[in-house]
């Protein structure tokens, strides 16, 4: 993704055959996140979003939490020293039920103006994460490989 120039707002969207509640659980509970989020154990509770990737632990402020439809939180790539030094950005998860038992999940990663390395790095990551989340919820299994 090195040729992208305007990465300060990134939008990713996926349709998942699952309920909004299932998606909410999958993005706020560590037993789910570790199966699709690069092995990260992520938990949203008490106004914070706690992460643990391979022993590196940190937490971010939750700006808005409306289960099961909206979660907004600060984002710091604390797993990488260069990116961790950049300003915090913002991630918004929007969960919207559609017809036919399908739910639309949209991730907006913005306020990345002062975090160019993070912006560059997460672009491929969100695709992988959302693809893995869809597979997990629809098949009960993580993505192979």
């Amino acid at each position, binding site marked *: 993704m090195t*040729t992208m120039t305007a990465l300060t707002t990134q939008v990713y*969207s996926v349709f998942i055959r699952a309920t909004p509640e299932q998606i909410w659980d999958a993005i706020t509970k560590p037993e789910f996140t570790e199966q699709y989020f690069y092995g990260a154990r992520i938990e949203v509770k008490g106004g914070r979003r706690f992460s643990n990737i391979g022993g590196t632990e940190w937490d971010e402020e939750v700006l808005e939490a409306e289960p099961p439809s909206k979660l907004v939180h600060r984002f710091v790539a604390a797993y990488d020293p260069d990116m961790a030094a950049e300003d915090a950005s913002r991630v918004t998860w929007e969960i919207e039920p559609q017809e036919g038992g399908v739910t639309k999940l949209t991730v907006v990663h913005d306020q990345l103006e002062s975090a160019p390395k993070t912006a560059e790095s997460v672009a491929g990551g969100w*695709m992988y994460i959302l*693809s893995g989340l869809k597979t997990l919820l629809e098949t009960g299994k993580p*993505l192979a490989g």
Partner: protein
Amino acid sequence: MDDDQVFKALADPTRRHLLDRLFERDGRTLTELESELEMTRFGVMKHLRVLEEAGLVVTRRDGREKLHYLNPVPIRLIHDRWIDKYTEHRVAALADLKHGLEDTA
């Protein structure tokens, strides 16, 4: 939202061109996209609608403007479904060969 819609949306050079424009610079208005194509505003709108229905383009409102964003997730899903599963190693080898041959040409 299914693979058929994604393949159909991608099976058109103008729509692939629109995705390439968004890949270069994301979050653009219809007017900006229209200015780079030899096509009527209505034509561009029609193509954007097909891309949006396939989930390849997502629109967001920013004040009075409607911005179009490239959503690469459906392409990733096709990759995971069709490439990873069967042929990633072979495809990678052939892609490398193609790049190698084209670079030296």
